[in-house]
């Protein structure tokens, strides 16, 4: 495992998508979904960068069980280092065909406080947006990255807004929870539609198996939610006890590639592979 030397790479495929994984509420499974999908894409030969943009509750560090990080995303945004110094190359660890690079956010209380101190500082946020957009161009154009995936904070966090602004494919993740559905509706109408002018796609996660007894149930749920929220549903992922038991200790798709959860994530990855 070493810090990425992205400059040596050549783009092997002609695809550049920036994806944000966002939600109204916490606990929808964004980080788990982002990390597993990023890994599947990398395993399929795409060059993938996964960035932890949840500055309130960073969790990728724990999910990937990183012991020592030289530079964090916090350092990049505070301009204490360059983007390529932040990215940790995990391609060897996971033996992926494409490059698999991850940028981690510092989970210490001090770092969280430092970031949240800037949460309403528009100047700082504008500078961060510049950095994110420059970084996006750099990774796509010069370093041959195909997918950049931002795992964001839930709700109206400014850092998430920046990631959404930089994204080509904003994705919202919801649970089958009434409050979450109502909140997501307002998030789509108030922020995505009116302010950001972006149309997100939806992934419904942790759906109780009792609601998905047969293929018809999938269709019905899809059309109901699509009608309610006015956006396209690109994935329905059932709730699996095995995933819960995994407790975010490792990447599930790596250990159980044939499990239905991994299949669901795989189908989601295909959606992006097929997209423009």
């Amino acid at each position, binding site marked *: 495992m070493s810090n990425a030397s992205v400059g040596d790479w050549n783009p092997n495929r002609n695809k550049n998508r920036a994806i944000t994984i966002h939600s109204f509420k916490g606990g929808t499974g964004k980080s788990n979904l982002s990390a597993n999908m990023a890994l599947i894409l990398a395993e399929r030969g795409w060059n993938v960068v996964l960035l932890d943009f949840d500055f309130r509750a960073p969790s990728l560090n724990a999910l990937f069980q990183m012991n020592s990080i030289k530079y964090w995303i916090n350092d990049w945004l505070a301009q204490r280092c360059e983007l390529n110094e932040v990215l940790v190359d995990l391609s060897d660890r996971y033996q992926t065909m494409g490059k698999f690079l991850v940028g981690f956010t510092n989970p*210490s*209380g*001090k770092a969280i*406080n430092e970031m*949240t*101190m800037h*949460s*309403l500082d*528009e100047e700082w*946020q*504008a500078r961060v*947006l*510049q950095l994110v*957009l420059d970084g996006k161009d750099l990774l796509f154009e010069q370093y041959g990255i195909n997918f950049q995936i931002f795992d964001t904070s839930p*709700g*109206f*966090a*400014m850092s998430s*807004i920046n990631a959404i*602004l930089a994204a080509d494919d904003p994705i919202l993740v919801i649970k089958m929870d009434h409050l979450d559905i109502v909140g997501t509706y307002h998030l789509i109408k*108030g*922020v995505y539609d*009116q*302010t*950001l002018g972006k149309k997100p796609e939806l992934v419904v996660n942790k759906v109780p198996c009792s609601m998905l007894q047969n293929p018809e149930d999938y269709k019905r749920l899809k059309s109901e939610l699509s009608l309610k929220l006015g956006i396209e549903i690109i994935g329905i992922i059932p709730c699996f006890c095995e995933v819960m038991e995994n407790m975010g200790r490792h990447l599930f798709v790596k250990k159980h590639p044939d499990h239905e959860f991994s299949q669901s994530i795989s189908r989601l990855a295909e959606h992006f592979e097929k997209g423009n």
Partner: protein
Amino acid sequence: MTDASMELRRITILERNAEYHDAAEQCFLVYQQTQDSDLALRGFRNLNSSIWRSNNLAEMRTGLSDLISRIRKAKETMKFEKDQLAYLEAVALEAEGWLAEPPDSEKFIQATECFIKLGELEHALNLITSLIAYLNPDKQIHWAQHGIEIATTLSPEKKDTYYLLLVEPLLLYEDVETKEALLKEIYNRTKALSQINNRDHLGNIAVLTGLDLIQPYRIQEVEIHSIRQDNVHELVRSLDKTTHNRIQGMLLNLLGTSHYRMAEAEAITDIRQELFKKAKDYFLQSVSMLERTSAYGELLRAYTLAGEGFLSIAELEHDFNQRNEYYQLGEMHLQKSRSIGGFTRLLQLRARAAINLGVALERLSWFELSLERRKKKLIEIYELQIEGRDFAQQTKSLQEAGYATMYASEVSGFLSDLETRSNQKRDWAIKQQKLSRTSLALFQKTLDKKGLVAALSSAAFACSKLADLTPTFEEKKALFEDMFLYGELAIEGAQKIIDPVITANAYQQAGNAAQRLGILCGDGELLKKAIELYDYAVQAWSKTGERNKHANALTQLADTFLYFSSLDFTVKETTRKHYLMQSERLHQKAANIYSNLFFFHDEGENYWRIGQIHLLKEDYHGAQEYFDKVQKSFDKVAELIPSLAEIYSVFSTFGTTFVGLVDGLSIIKRGNYSHASKLFKELASSLNRETDRSLRQLRQLLTALSSIAIFASTNDSKENKKAKTELERMIVKLTPDAYDQQLPYSLHKTIHRLQIFLIAPKLFFPPLLLDLPLKEKMIAMTQTRHLVRMALNMYQATADQRESVVKAPTEDVIRNYVARISSIIAER
């Protein structure tokens, strides 16, 4: 002896035995034989007296109706002289006056005028002393003056009795200057009389009018007794039993009042308590006397005073069960006085009953464990105080209105504490401040110096409450400055009165103001001032015997020494150490007092601070010793109150873990990083099963310390150096920098805050205490109050910070932001 003279003798014997009804019937019987109108008149006098002997209100009313109809009939059937007829008409008018609801003062006036014309001066004077209470203020004075004139024509012995009877209703008069002048006149006249008579009435009047603060207490006790035992018995021999009861009741009220005032001026708690108890007993005796009369005004006063007596006793009672019982008795008597209030037009007394009932309910509300019910009760109390204020304002009693407004202000503060929604919280605090200022303005117009000082302290308290809820520095500062000013004025006022509690409270409030302003502005001079003021407060509280408050003042003083030592960087190291020593000594003293009072939470808090002082001094061994004590104190609370065991076991674990943590720090100091790392790791794993959030946070800290210590022990010089720097930084943070407001993210504060946030919500829902026996409930509630207050302070201390840090942007903010960065997007 003739038959007629035999009959007359029989009548006289009946009269002497106070068997007035029989005497009256005998008179009317003899009149039938003799047609002697004097005898008929004598019959009516006896009939009138018999009515006032009754203990039963309904019976009295029937008697009065009967009297009126018999007089009407007699006017037709009996032959009277002109004056005799006028007298009977006046008696009938008086009876009609009493039968009206409320009593008809106009009829009393007509009757009194008639009695005066007829030379029935004693009867007139008796009626004047009753009617004054039912008159408008201007008429009150007129009739009081009239009363004095009439009294001067009586014999010296009777003269001062009537003077005394006139003083009572006059006390209600609102025009302070006129009232004072009139009372002084009565006082001086009585004083002149006392050269001839004994000094009993003089003492009574002095006590009632407050003309002499000290002297009345000295002469009062013995001499009021003498009135009761000798003079009154002499006096009432010629009066009927009801009048006797009324006067006895009045005098017992006086006796109680004199004891009450002596108690208020007494510095030694035990004596103070004894005096309050004695006063209460007198008021209860008075109640039993007056219940047999229709003197509702006086009865209301007796009930109110008895209620107040119970409240005062409860305040000084250490036994929780007993204290609760006293509060309940207080409430019972005040409820009674409130219900009697409906019978009387004495609005001022009704005001007082409402106000004091509010006070009793407020004290009792602390026993209420459900937050919602407590809130409801407090709102009820608030309304009672407002009712009291309105009654008081109708009678233009500035003093009572001042007290009612001040109490309403304090209750608003409690409601602000209980409110969880920030807007409502602030609304109540604003209300509290407004009311406190109004009460201050009211007291400034009265001569009540004690009330004025209490109102100043209350206004200072209101400022601090509002400052806690105010986000901006400038506003906070302005409020603390006001608080300081009120505090200083309260001290100035307190020096003119003799009341140790009020004095102590004034110093404490001023100290709080100086301390908070000093911390806010980082002003060492103000902290010095706070030390000086707290020092006085400590001395003053120690004289009151209120040990809990004494310990609290000691804790504040100790804290201020710490603030001062960390704020003033210019002090020499030796001076700083001296401050730390002082602080430790005071915390230890406070801990000892709390321990004796079984307030183990506060004991633990003080030990926690001593532990931190030792950390500051880098005396790790000492720090360990005190963190160990912290654990023991919290264990004691857990043991004492089983329902709180869970919460206090968290506190206790903090103590234990800190003992180990400090051990690790001392090992680091000796350079043995790998050993320290192992210790931190062990400590962290001992917390593995803890589900408590703050303990998890502590576990993370220990894990981090352990990891850093590993790096510090590596051979890689770069890593090693970095780790050591990091360790040093963390150790600095482990010292009690809560005293340094400049370090908002300090570890200590974080842990403390987490503790508070964790604990406060649990205590805000006290149903978990419901199963406790009363004594434990009381202890738990005291702790709860303390914790909740602490939680609110902590919450507020971080409010500004969280305001700007944690708050998520609204849609508007996002919209503005997107508009602002649209050019960046457009460029792409």
